[in-house]
């Protein structure tokens, strides 16, 4: 199965380079103007296409994570400012496909009772993602491990992730790597992210605090684990997996609630996770560290691509993949419901694009933590607040679609006290 993935990952490399390139300015296609319309649309067709999208999104997440690990190793071997920046750029590129894949996360309702870990792979995306993308992260816990004596290896990081039944003891995944590359952001709502010096990784005897070697080992180990985790998830969506019992792809294809899950995921991401926890909490509280990429100040990339994930799920698109979709089913049944949804998504898209553009401006960019600090009425804050309101209002579009297609509202609350 691993061999398969490598082939797929290699095949997808051009796509992901394209996506990485787009990261600086966002993707160009708006999703609707020249939308692919299949001749027929069926539940099976929608699900098949969704599996293709998942395969591509996790494949891109894996290949960009491999690139991130490679740049991290280059930096560790030769800890210069230039190499640190290359590693940071690789982190940024990796956020693009992963944040789009995150729409897959709310899968407990279709996985929990099915004991999907019997094949040795992850039992659900929900269970798996805690090791990959958990937040908030208590950085002092990572520092205490680095300053400690225990051998730093994958087993230690896994055992310490969520240690003492504390999910904030995040020792693995994207945000741990982010902290290792940037350090804490002490700039408040002003411009600037974490400013970890390359000398934190000095290997020429000039290390200031005697922890540089362990820091390097930590960064490499966390990157190794991220690659291993994404490999395991990509395996769950491979072509072989589609016909192998116990995989997430097989389970999804054979689930009677496949479409309910797609719609439920859109609601969970758009109206709850993205609108509220990832955008509104910070905007309401005015605390600049209320952003999930708080060390790197790259939340504009993260939230833009979370929204892309919502669009992807509806239109059946990812990268250059397109196929039968929920949107086709809706358009088939009631054009007005489709038009309303498309208009709502387009309007949000334009606002998310402006947030992305503000963060990526070459001169005086406005990052999301600066938007959090802006006064009421400031341009970017108004755009962000409008995006939040429209994301919340998407709930009524989603309910209309749910009724139109006779779908069932599924539980999206996660796995309970063990997650």
């Amino acid at each position: 199965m691993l061999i398969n993935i490598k082939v797929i990952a290699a095949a997808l490399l051009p796509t992901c380079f394209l996506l990485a390139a787009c990261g600086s300015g966002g993707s160009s296609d708006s999703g609707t103007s020249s939308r692919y319309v299949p001749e027929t649309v069926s539940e099976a067709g929608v699900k098949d296409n969704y599996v293709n999208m998942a395969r591509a999104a996790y494949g891109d997440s894996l290949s960009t994570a491999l690139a991130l690990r490679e740049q991290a190793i280059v930096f560790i071997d030769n800890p210069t400012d230039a190499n640190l920046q290359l590693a940071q750029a690789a982190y940024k590129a990796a956020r693009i496909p992963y944040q789009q894949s995150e729409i897959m996360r709310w899968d407990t309702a279709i996985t929990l009772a099915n004991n999907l870990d019997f094949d040795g792979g992850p039992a659900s995306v929900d269970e798996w993602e805690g090791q990959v993308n958990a937040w908030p992260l208590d950085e002092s816990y990572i520092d205490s491990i680095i300053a400690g004596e225990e051998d730093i290896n994958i087993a230690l990081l896994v055992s310490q992730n969520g240690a003492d039944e504390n999910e904030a003891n995040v020792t693995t995944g994207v945000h741990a790597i982010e902290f290792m590359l940037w350090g804490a952001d002490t700039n408040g709502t002003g411009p600037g992210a974490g400013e970890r010096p390359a000398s934190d990784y000095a290997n020429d005897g000039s290390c200031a605090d005697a922890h540089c070697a362990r820091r390097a080992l930590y960064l490499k180990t966390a990157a190794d684990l991220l690659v291993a985790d994404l490999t395991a998830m990509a395996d769950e969506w491979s072509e072989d997996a589609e016909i192998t019992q116990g995989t997430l792809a097989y389970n999804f294809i054979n689930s009677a609630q496949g479409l309910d899950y797609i719609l439920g995921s859109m609601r969970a991401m758009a109206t709850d996770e993205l609108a509220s926890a990832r955008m509104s909490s910070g905007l309401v509280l005015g605390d600049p560290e209320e952003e999930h990429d708080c060390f790197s100040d790259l939340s504009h990339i993260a939230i833009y691509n979370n929204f892309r994930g919502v669009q992807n799920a509806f239109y059946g698109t990812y990268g250059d993949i397109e196929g039968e979709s929920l949107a086709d089913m809706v358009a088939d049944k009631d054009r007005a419901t489709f038009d309303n949804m498309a208009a709502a998504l387009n309007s949000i898209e334009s606002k998310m694009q402006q947030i992305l553009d503000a963060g990526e401006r070459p001169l005086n960019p406005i990052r999301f933590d600066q938007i959090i600090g802006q006064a009421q009425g400031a341009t970017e804050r108004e755009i962000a607040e409008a995006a939040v309101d429209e994301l919340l209002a998407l709930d009524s579009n989603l309910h209309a679609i749910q009724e139109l297609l006779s779908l069932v509202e599924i539980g999206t609350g996660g796995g309970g006290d063990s997650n």
Partner: protein
Amino acid sequence: MAFRPLFLPIFLATSVTLTACGGGGGSGPGEEVVSLDDTQPQPVPAAPKDTQQLSGGNATVFDTSADAFSSRSANMTDIDRIKQFNLGNDFFENPWVAGSASTSSRDGVGALLNNNACQDCHIRDGRGHAPNVSLTENGTDFSSILLKAARANISSADRALIEQSLLGKIPDSSVGGQLQHDAIPDIMKEVELSVGYTTVAVNFSDGTRAVLRKPLWQLTSNYADSGFDFDDDTVFSARVAPPMIGMGLLALIPEADILAGEDPGDSNGDGISGRANYVWSLEDQAVTLGRFGWRAGQSSVLEQSAGAFANDMGLTSRLQLMNNCMPHQADCLAAPNGNGDSVSDYDYEVADPILDAVAFYSSHLGVPARRDVNNAEVQAGKSLFTEAGCGSCHVASYVTSASTEQPELSEQVIFPYTDLLLHDMGAELADFNIDNQPADDSALVEFLATAREWRTPPLWGIGLAKTVDPTATFLHDGRARTILEAVLWHGGEAEQSRQDVLQMTAQERDQLLTFLNDL
């Protein structure tokens, strides 16, 4: 809310009847029911049976999935209020971090704590569970249950303060008023906890036997070696995290309607007394009626939230400025705090907007609709519930007060099945000493509540408890694995109801449970 359903007057009339029934089955306190208008009592038109489907009035939600307890009031439409609810959800759901971290709005948890996320005890906004045991080992999963501690032998001066509701209790001198069984890194945990169970057989009159489990708590203070063991007279109280639904509606039950159910001297001779707990309100700085918590020890959702932040999570707030360390717990006292955030200074850990949002969230979790109100078996079970006198304490219905601040919850006909009063539930369910012996009935353990008294818990949503979390258990200490087991533990004032249930046929028991599972 400008929109007012046309059928509200019918609801109102119905609920008057129900309140009257609940107060004492029509004889006794029921006569004191507050009349909603000055006209003479007149025959009340029978309400359509399915009005009772809406347990939470117009705030009722229609979700029967594992998320059934996690939706906002269905009639909440204002986008700013939805944002406030979601902000509260964010901070209810996500873990808090030890101080002082980059995520400065979410730091400062501990140093001593029971858990670091609200949601981890109130699993999917539902109830927690008692630890399970294996064949060979005691249970040690205290992730959604905690123990409180109060002294029994106290001075008459302290007793007088408690009787005036100026003081809740005298805490244990080793660990304080609550046993925090967890701590942030490098801080000593104050206790080690485990539990085993003995079995208790109960026979129904038809020969059927139920086997219940009775907890035997094993509690050790880690400060014993340094001269601070538990006090000899400390009374312990095990509390599972209760479900979060409908709290704002309970807050709006008119005080007079609650007090109308009181019968401290059992003047109507039905064996059921019922007393209000009066507590010191930190918010109002006054003695107020207690409504929330297993012993009605909190007067408002806001104070309950601040209390849980302080005691369960070690997070200070504007209402709870003191950390939960004892004077002899030097490492706890020296631990970093999470005061303020990256843009503002304040002398506590939970910022005001976050405390307010969590309280708002907790007030607005919708109660799920009943699924099968008109089913014949459900109806039969409801009759049995009434005949066995269960409704004397589990009072079915109220109309909430008018509230401009909480328009979704204002003037709603609700069916919580509680009187929010304290009742003696017998020695078996009483708080206990270190040797698991029931505490003396005279001890006041939480304001006016004795070691045997518990607030009638609402029953709404109970039928979905295990849908929301399959590991959920029942009663204050989670000993009951099923709803029937919980019924069979009822003693004290509920002894006669329990006897009535023991006399039921298998079919009647099924009907009773079918009704309870429909709530």
